[in-house]
């Protein structure tokens, strides 16, 4: 067993053990080995079952805007983490840390978000 195999095995163990808490549905879409942190402007906050979504307008280095659709858990499960129907409003400046989908689309799973007042909320 070489170092690469060993590292992949450890990563696989880590992934398998970490996933159940967050894999409610659609886990196959996400690139769980990748994390992105981006600053952007909230355009919509969808408080709904089976999952909440935060839409954030992010500008890249060239100034081009891209709207990211970021998935959270359902309202019941994210409420204890501090989320509310009123947590976000259009125009809020936020910093999001996400796991993107594998396809390259501007879709991801929210890991944490820094609110305009500096407070950090975890996924759930």
């Amino acid at each position, binding site marked *: 067993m070489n170092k690469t195999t*060993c590292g992949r*095995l450890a990563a696989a163990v*880590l992934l398998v*053990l970490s996933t159940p808490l967050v894999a409610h549905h659609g*886990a*196959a879409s996400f690139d769980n080995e990748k994390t992105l942190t981006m600053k952007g402007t909230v355009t919509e906050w969808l408080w709904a079952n089976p999952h909440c979504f935060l839409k954030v307008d992010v500008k890249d280095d060239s100034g081009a805007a891209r709207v990211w659709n970021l998935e959270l858990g359902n309202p019941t499960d994210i409420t204890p983490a501090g989320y509310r129907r009123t947590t976000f409003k259009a125009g809020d400046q936020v910093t999001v840390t996400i796991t993107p989908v*594998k396809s390259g*689309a501007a879709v991801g799973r929210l890991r944490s978000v820094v609110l305009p007042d500096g407070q950090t909320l975890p996924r*759930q």
Partner: protein
Amino acid sequence: MKVLAMRRACTLLISASVGLAIFSMVTLAQAPAQQGAPPGRGGPPPVPLSQVTWEPWNNTGLRAIPQNVEPDGPAPRRDLTGIWDPARGGIGARGARNPAPLTEWGQKKGGTHKSGDGIRQVPADQINDPLSTMGDPGGYPRQLLFELRHVQFLHTPQSVVALFMWERRWRVIWTDSRQLPGDPDPRWYGYSVGRWDDDYTFVVNSNGTDERTWLDNAGNPHSSELRVEERWHRISEKRLELTVTLDDPRAYTRPWVALDKVQFVQIPPTTDLMEMMNAASEVQKVAEQFKEK
């Protein structure tokens, strides 16, 4: 020697990974308290049950079964009255535990299901789960195998009524000695009768489930021949456990236990719970999010 050292390093790395994963799970589970999120609404573990703060409205429930549920007392005789919280132990995102092997019919039926999680998991834009993509009723027994959240039992002279938080569904379990229908018209939530096996174990038998529903969140199938047995065993005043056995000879090669002693604790009868349901319009809007480029 070099191989031995590599194996040792590998073992250490895997151990560290496992430790880190467990640590991350614990950290995630306790994150609200550490992040200073509002207390209450069920509160983070491992708060003793008596110390949980309940809000007047929209409680989400316990995040783990408290080890300390004192003051507790003996189970009352033939009584399930109360609001019972499984503390997220009934979410079942990946489907039922250890399903029995499928029959040929079951394999064919299950092969048409593209689930969001579990063994038939596909990318989110390909899911065809009728519950999460169309807002169909989850149906029975998926009601027990997926998103089993709070259940409130009410007793009447002729029945036990179960009120489920998830989907805001109720079931009437008839206790007036009637038999299950012999040739039932399929229903989303089937037909149920109940009896006391002993003074502390309420046994529910059901049939007549609609084949359009999935058995669980992994897209396991069932047929209209499915028979379900629920055993609600009251351990004490504050503790209850549920075991579910399925028998569907058209879909599975043998009967199997889909839930094994899932734990519930009784929470105050004044607890108001948050609404948790899949409205069709919201479900479709959520599904669209994955399709946007």
